[in-house]
């Protein structure tokens, strides 16, 4: 299971890098979204994938075998990262919209007025 997800993450990274190298700003932004989800999956995978038991200490017991459960901390971190990613997604789309209003273009190659020459 972990291997499958690891390969999937690799594929997502490849797609994301491909997208952020495109000329259209919209595709670059989509690439950022794909990359941010791929990183979320890395954290998710870091907690391990085991399906034997939910991470609760059963009634009457004192301890829990860590080999049987997923690490819940990693999943909390993923939640946090998803929320941050959502905020950034909202902002970046708004910025893109405003940019299009001001300049009327999607082409990154036209974005060279502020660069050093």
């Amino acid at each position, binding site marked *: 299971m972990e291997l499958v997800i690891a390969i999937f993450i690799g594929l997502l990274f490849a797609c994301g890098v491909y997208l952020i190298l495109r000329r259209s700003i919209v595709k670059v932004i989509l690439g950022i979204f794909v990359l941010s989800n791929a990183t979320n999956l890395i954290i998710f995978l870091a907690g391990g994938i085991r399906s034997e038991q939910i991470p609760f200490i059963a009634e009457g017991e004192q301890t829990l075998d860590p080999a049987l459960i997923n690490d819940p901390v*990693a999943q909390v971190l993923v939640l946090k990262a998803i929320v941050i990613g959502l905020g*950034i997604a909202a902002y970046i789309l708004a910025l893109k919209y405003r940019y299009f209003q001001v300049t009327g273009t999607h082409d990154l190659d036209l974005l060279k007025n502020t660069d*050093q020459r």
Partner: protein
Amino acid sequence: MSLFALLLLPFAYIILALLIKKASIKKRLAILFATANFLWALALIPLVQFKEMIVVQTGGWQAPYGITLVADKLSVFMLVMVAIIFLVTTIYATQAVDKERRKSGHYFFSFGILMGVNGSLIAGDVFNLYVWYEVMLMSSFILISLGGEKAQMEGSIKYLILNLISALFFVSGVGLLYGNLGSLNMADLSRIIANQPELLPQLNPALILMFVSFAIKGALVPFFFWLPASYHTPPPAVTALFAGLLTKVGIYSLIRFYTLFLYHDAPFWNQLILIMGSLSMIIGVFAASSQYDFRKILSFHIISQVGYAVIALGFYSVAGIAAAIFFLGHNMLSKTNAFLVAGWIKHHKGTLNLKTLGEVYKESTIWGVLFFISAFSLAGLPPLSGFVGKYLIIKAGIEANQLTVTLIALFVGLFTLFSMVKIWLEVFWKNKPRDKVVKAPLPPPKDHWMLTTSVVMAILIVAMGVWAQPIINFCEAAAFDLMNPDKYIEFVLGKS
């Protein structure tokens, strides 16, 4: 408790700014809260000298499990510098930022940046550091695009995408580190690595990812391209704030990570850091010399000067790290003041193109002197703070037997001087070109607060050069603590 206030003060302002409609009250409150933040940061100095470090466990959860806030001497030094820069730019912005931008939340988002920067400086937990980075980044994204001019939009898209990639690198590094070691607390991680050095090779991907992220944030070669493409687009007050705070937080994190994790594999990282630092110095200063825009020259100088701080870190000795810390502090003051002068010129002349400016010294002697002080402090002339900073770095380099890098640092200083003299000649000295007339904004806006803040900064620069010894002592104590990570670990986790 003492550390929470650094996060709560900016947050309280953000809440109040939402509730209050009137712009003049917002402005006064902003100055009030920035002053309070400054005083609070100052009050931490005696505390940290008396108790060595301040550790707060949020919610009472013990160290490796809860979120820890730590302030050692390095953090406190940076906190005080950040508070000074923030207070100065807040007062400066009351006149330098136009009314439209101030109404639509200039202060609101600059306090967001302050909260993020303060948080990253006291975070004792890797994921927490990422979250504070994100707070800082979000606010800076909005601040850099606030106003929505065409150049600003372009600059902010570049700034946004490259900084987001840096954040993604960082968070994937955090994920890999947590997967390998099962902890997020920096002190705990450092202890695990120190106890099990055989784990180190499998941590390299995570550490490299984080290093690249800090290098993007700190604008080191070859990751600096976002900085000169975006820093000259927003209003000068915003650039001054960014130049003073943002790249320096990247370098702060690099110092923190270096002294907690990377030092285990010092031969490799030292080489990498020295090479990247030297390249940053050279490429930054050469690119700066070829520019014809006031703020672009200064932006490229940020890259060059960050290189100085980084090579001093690469010497890996108490003297080297102390020099890096001192140089960061000096650079924050001098660079911000140079941008404040650029802001005044933009305000009064309507342009920052060197080819159309001229005779500013004749029209306004005081601003000429202010630029002179900050520019020659950046170039490293005695008795200004830059001289002490460069002297410490070069001394540490010779002691660490890194002669090539030290000679590069000296050589780069010459070109820094050259590009500063170029600004001086073109903007302040030469006769105004008669054929290129730029309309100055009429009537000339009021500038007494802009002048006051810039004078205060210039006095601080001179003071930091003349009374350097107490500051150097403090930096050396901070560097000594950093070179002994066991002390940090013991303070955070308790005796083991």
